[in-house]
Structure formats: structure tokens, C-alpha cells
């Protein structure tokens, strides 16, 4: 075991020592800032889904807001915690571009289901 490892084994697990260790590196500090953003966005999502907010701005705007915040949170996790932002462009796009297909499917298939409802053609579609 190296001297560095031996020294690290003697490090304190007190909250102060852990906090100092986290603040001592800009990457770790960035992780904590993202963690705070994820927390804030989660609280914001719960807040705007409250009935009095729905009454004020309507369910469509609430749903759009929810999806935008969820996508922002997902992007933070994928880019920062999963380090996609520091991978090559090829790996980044290999992981991301196939999601164009589910998005397209969602647009077409959910749109069609909604269209059927509004045109009274739902009966018999599902058991």
C-alpha cells in the first residue's frame, strides 16, 4: 500500500473533514452544486403540481414545466454525474441520438391515441 493510501486511511470521517475534502476540489464542489440544483428542481416540481398552481396557470403549462424540469435534471445527471460532458463527441452522440426514436414514437403514438379520443374512435381500441 502506498504512503498516500496509508495517509488516507487515517483521514477523519467527521462532517467537517468530509466537507473540507469536498470543497478542496473544483470537480467535487461542482457535484455538490449539481446536487443542490437537483434538490431545488425536485421541490419546484412538487410545488407547481399543487392544485392552486394548476388552477392559476392551467394543467398544460404545469405539464410543460414538469417535463422541462425533469429533462433538465436528467441532463445534469447524464452530463455531470455520468461524465458524458467529458467523453468524446462520438460516445456522447452514441448514447444520446437513439432517443430520437422513442421521442418520435411518443409524438406519433400518443398523439394518435389523443386524436382517437377527440374523434370518438376510442371504443374497442383497448379491452
Amino acid at each position, binding site marked *: 500500500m502506498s504512503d498516500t493510501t496509508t495517509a488516507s486511511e487515517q483521514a477523519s470521517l467527521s462532517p467537517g473533514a468530509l466537507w473540507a475534502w469536498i470543497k478542496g476540489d473544483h470537480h467535487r464542489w461542482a457535484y455538490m452544486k449539481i446536487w443542490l440544483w437537483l434538490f431545488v428542481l425536485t421541490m419546484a416540481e412538487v410545488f407547481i403540481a399543487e392544485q392552486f398552481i394548476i388552477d392559476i396557470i392551467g394543467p398544460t403549462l404545469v405539464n410543460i414545466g414538469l417535463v422541462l424540469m425533469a429533462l433538465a435534471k436528467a441532463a445534469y445527471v447524464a452530463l455531470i454525474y455520468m461524465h458524458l460532458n467529458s467523453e468524446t463527441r462520438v*460516445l456522447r452522440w452514441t448514447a444520446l441520438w437513439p432517443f430520437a426514436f422513442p421521442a418520435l414514437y411518443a409524438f406519433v403514438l400518443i398523439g394518435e391515441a389523443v386524436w382517437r379520443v377527440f374523434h370518438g374512435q376510442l371504443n374497442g381500441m383497448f379491452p
Partner: protein
Amino acid sequence: MSAEHAEHPALMPNEWPEDPHFGRATSAKVGMWVFLLSDAFMFAGFLLAYGILRGGTDPEVGWIPAGEPAFGIGFTAFLTFLLICSSVTMVLSISALQQNHLKYAKFFLGATIFGGACFLLGQVYEYWGFGLEGHGLVPLGLNFGASHRATSFYCITGFHGMHVFSGVTYLTVIFIRMLKGKYDDGNWNHLETAGLFWHFVDLVWILVFTLVYLWI
């Protein structure tokens, strides 16, 4: 492990041969990304089916049948926060191992496993309420097969719960290996690969929480 492998320890991730397309991403990392992509498509299939069923609901009937309980948003928000916390401890554990800081790597990895286990317990409570009166979706009448809402809910959250269980098991194996000194050389390749899976589980839950629990 063969004698040849034993004599040549695994390459550190930052020593991996440079590839023109994938840079220094290890084969384990690229393989995990490909797996996660296929896994994400399975979740996408579930969420698409949910969207089609919900979008195609007759407005006069409504999505929530009479007598079915509402989801506990506050409690689920807490579970979401728990997964987010376990994601940050995961990435801190990797950062610690990258610096050969084994004590912190073990501490944060242990915290991650603890967070995942608490999430699973929370999900058991959400489903069955630990037998407490007036708690749990099943005792309150949200039964699998009874409605589109109930069935899609259990399929999606149950499938995600199995991923959390797999993740906790995976991380526990890595943790035991770490305690046995397998990563004393500071090689973070295995931990980073397991971390990708764990972050993916968190990422999927972020979408499930919004689309299944909060969607109006």
C-alpha cells in the same frame, strides 16, 4: 485469473489506449453505455405504453377510477431526494478512489448502498405499508390488473425497483471487493462502470417521478 493477468495488473482508466472515436473510455465503460442504451429503450417502451393508455383515456371516464387511492407525492419526493443523494455519494466515491483515498471511497460507496436500500424499503412501504392500518397502495385498493393506471404504475415502478435492487447488489459486490483490497492500487474502472449503472437508475427515476406521479 490466469498467471499472465496476475503479472500484468489492469490498466488504469487514464492509461487506456487512445481510440480515435471513444478516446480513453475503457471497454467496460463503452460496454456499459451500450447496455444502458438497450435498458433505456425498455423503460421507453413502458413509458410509451403508459403515455398511449393515458392519452387515450376517455375524458368522461377519467384516468383515476373511482375508489383508487392517490399516490403519496410527498413521500415519493423524499424517495427521489434519497436517490439523488445516493447519486452524489456515488460520484464522490469515484472521485475519492481516483485520488487513492480509500477510506472516503469506502465511506461514500457504503452511503450509496445505504441510500439504495432505504429507497427499496420505501418502495415496499409504498406498496404494502408494512401492514400498518391505512398505509400502502395495495391495501388501499390499487390492485395490479384492476385498471390501466394501476397496471402501468406497478409495471413501471416495479421494473425500476428491480433495477434498484440489481444496483444495490452490484455496488455491494464492488464494496466487498474494495474491503478485500482489490482496489488498493486506486484503479477506479470497476467502480466507475458500476456508478454509470447507478446514475442511470437515478436518471430513470427522475423521469418516472415526473411522468407517473406528478403528471396532471
